[in-house]
């Protein structure tokens, strides 16, 4: 089975984020990494492909620098990459992103699309289900376990009170939660091999997407202000000597919680 996986290059989440004058996330001059959530998606995709003698195509949308995220997926074992990059995509919202990625998935010929539940930077978590709607595919989301057998996709889906067992026929979209698997580390051999794997780069015209439907032009939302939130002030700080447990227990008693 051909499996597509969504990957995204994001500013290192452990660094302090910044916005530019147009209220867009600064992605230049900062450390960028493969979104930590995406590693679970790549691993899940590789396992499905390996079990079905299939292959994985890593798909991303972003500036040319997003190639690094695709290379990371290739070094883990994906067979090829597809990057949609076009200056007119700058400022795209979640729906526009879904429009573009849906076309890319169609083009890849994949029967299964895997992504993480949400990106760590934008965290809307709405792109995969929107892609599914645009493609007319079922979406099996918040998977904490994934099984693919023949054309049948089955997941354990996280719910507020436990989990649901959910099943659909491919083609389908699946989103995976963190902790669903243990992502493999790229081997040196994998990193070397990644350099020669094919990565297709496409623009809006190649995918037949109307530029007015994406980027700033197509955005349904406009940030009008950004202001700092007043910080909490810190309180008492004590050392963990023999008395710390007593002080903690006293504090709980003061709050009438014990």
């Amino acid at each position, binding site marked *: 089975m051909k499996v597509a996986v969504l990957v995204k290059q994001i500013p290192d989440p452990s660094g302090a984020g910044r916005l530019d004058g147009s209220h867009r996330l600064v992605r230049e001059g900062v450390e960028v990494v493969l979104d930590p959530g995406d590693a679970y998606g790549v691993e899940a995709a590789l396992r499905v492909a390996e079990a079905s003698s299939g292959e994985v195509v890593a798909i991303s949308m972003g500036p040319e620098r997003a190639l690094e995220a695709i290379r990371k997926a290739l070094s883990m074992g994906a067979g090829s990459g597809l990057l949609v990059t076009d200056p007119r995509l700058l400022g795209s*919202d979640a729906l526009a992103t879904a429009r573009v990625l849906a076309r890319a998935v169609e083009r890849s010929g994949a029967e299964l699309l895997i992504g993480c539940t949400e990106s760590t930077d934008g965290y809307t978590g709405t792109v995969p*289900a929107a892609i599914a709607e645009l493609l007319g595919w079922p979406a099996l989301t918040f998977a904490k376990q994934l099984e693919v057998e023949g054309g049948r996709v089955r997941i354990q889906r996280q719910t507020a*009170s*436990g989990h649901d067992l959910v099943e659909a026929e491919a083609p389908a979209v699946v989103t995976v939660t*963190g902790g669903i698997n243990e992502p493999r580390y790229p081997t040196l051999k994998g990193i070397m091999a990644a350099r020669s794997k094919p990565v297709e780069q496409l623009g809006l015209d190649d995918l037949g997407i109307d530029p007015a439907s994406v980027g700033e032009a197509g955005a349904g939302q406009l940030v009008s202000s950004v202001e700092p939130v007043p910080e909490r002030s810190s309180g008492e700080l004590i*050392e963990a000597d023999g008395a710390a447990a007593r002080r903690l227990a006293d504090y709980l008693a003061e709050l009438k*919680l014990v």
Partner: protein
Amino acid sequence: MARVLVYCELLQGEPAPVSLEALTLARELGEVSAVVLDPEGERAAPALGRYGAGTVHLGADAAYRDYLGQPAAAALGALVQELDPDLVLLGATYDARDLAARVSARLQLTLLANATGVVPSGPGFAASSTIFGATQAVLTELRGRSPLVLLRPKSVSASPAGEVEARVLPLSLPPDAPRGPRRLESVVAAAAGPQLEEAKVVVSGGRGLQEASNFELVERLARLLHGAVGASRAVVDAGWTPYARQVGQTGKTVKPDLYIACGISGAMQHTVGMKGAKHIVAINRDPDAPIFKLADLGVVGDALKVVPELIAELERRGVSA
């Protein structure tokens, strides 16, 4: 007057708390109607009325229970087209996030996720949200007709409007609605103690607990305090505990009376989900850990040592689970 449609859900037979929060917010914005897509939805109608819904559009087809996302998207999409509301508000649950995404793609409507509030703005609305670990507040103008907004739980405190009897209107499933993934089975985890989002006390564990088996310390302390267990993203990603317990940006927002962070450094990813707690206690080895900036009481020390000592001290004082 603006017309606001609120998508409401049931959680174990009762209106979900976040749905009541969304209704409470919607009342300030205009005339409120609710939509419920659940075979047991009728039970919720009186409560939805009390929280401000003048009308409840009720879809009771079994397909909403048996299939994920697609039947609900077809029904909600059709209703939004028919009513043409000025705003569609949804409490951000697992299901609502998928549903909003599908309806947004289906009808080409603006969708804003992770909102913490909505205010009138010009002829329409603007939504507030926070970024960078809730250190920056963002206001976003919503363009186009019937924008969809996903409201993060605990952003608004729910309050009833009075004894309003909602008019219930049946809503039929569009005949061409795709069925979508089939829900074969629902497993309710034997949840000891209160739900994470509703608990008065939350005890969370992070990397500082060093290994998976030590996470049990957090569970013991939570039991003793009749609280719920939370976790940082790092330990969920490491597979120590399920995603359902993750507190933070990618995860749940909690606002307990007391939040105890054990071995959690306080990355922004985490603090966005807990900084609304009334009181915060942090236990961490690193005196420079950002979590101490939020803590009312901070203990600089190894959580593996301090937590068992606290459990012993509480037990010595006669506290029992």
